[in-house]
């Protein structure tokens, strides 16, 4: 058996980057496993039973933190489940075991580049990036949105912390957009 392949971040480095621009800290995350779960038609009961106590199923436009599984809503009957990569690299297989045939599970870990944004007040940055009324939405708010023509998922962890998931192939363009906007706020 050949030896193991090395992994690179979405920006093409072996280690994730962190950028500081004024009050803004942009942290690339490379340690999260991701998978989508979709409830099969007519299997709602089995689905929620399987999830109970294991995988949170937040309401539309919401997200829930948990251990090991956090998750956020993406579409009717569909959620993205997050877990630490170190312990849950095979997240899709785990979830398949958990949900059996009540759910369609798809590996998503490498489909996305993730950037966590930190600042005392992220509103001035986000109002230049996407059409989300950030000061108005609650913690846990999760939604797909457009950032400079790039379709992303935005999760408001709290007033000063946001997660952005963007398509892995566009990671550089996405980071550039965030950095440019941050610089123009200063």
């Amino acid at each position, binding site marked *: 058996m050949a030896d193991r392949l090395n992994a690179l971040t979405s920006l093409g480095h072996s280690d994730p980057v962190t950028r500081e621009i004024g009050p803004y800290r942009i942290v690339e995350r490379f340690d999260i496993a991701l998978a989508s779960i979709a409830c099969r038609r007519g299997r709602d009961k089995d689905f929620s039973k399987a999830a109970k106590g294991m995988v949170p199923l937040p309401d*539309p*436009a919401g997200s829930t933190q948990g251990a090991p599984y956090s998750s956020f*809503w*993406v*579409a*009717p009957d569909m959620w993205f489940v997050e877990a630490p990569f170190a312990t849950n690299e095979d997240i899709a297989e785990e979830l398949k075991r958990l949900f059996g045939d009540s759910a369609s599970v798809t590996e998503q870990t490498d489909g996305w580049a993730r950037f966590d944004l930190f600042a005392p007040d992220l509103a001035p940055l986000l109002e230049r990036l996407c*059409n989300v009324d950030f000061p108005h939405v609650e913690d846990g708010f999760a*939604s*797909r*949105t*457009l950032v400079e023509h790039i*379709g992303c998922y935005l999760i408001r962890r709290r007033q000063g912390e946001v997660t952005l998931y963007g398509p892995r192939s566009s990671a550089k363009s996405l980071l550039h957009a965030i950095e440019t906007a941050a610089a123009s706020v200063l």
Partner: protein
Amino acid sequence: MIIDHPILGPRDAQEFVYLGDASLMNRPDGLSDGIGAFHDYLYNRANPVGEHRELWYHEQGDRSWLVVTRNTLTHEITKVELARDVARASGRSR
């Protein structure tokens, strides 16, 4: 424009992709209906001045297809439904 998504609330129309008249839901059956039925289904439109039921896809959102009732003269939107629900109600689940 702003579309009041039945699940997500008001969302900018920029997040959506427009298809057209909601009559595009009523696809004939390929095994029982012929070219005439499909021709009328695919090509002819009422294209009204005023209230119009139309299909929008929330591509930069939750990927729901919606049936939006919108006035083509004022752009006022009076009703927004999940296309899946409308389709099921009209018996397309069979």
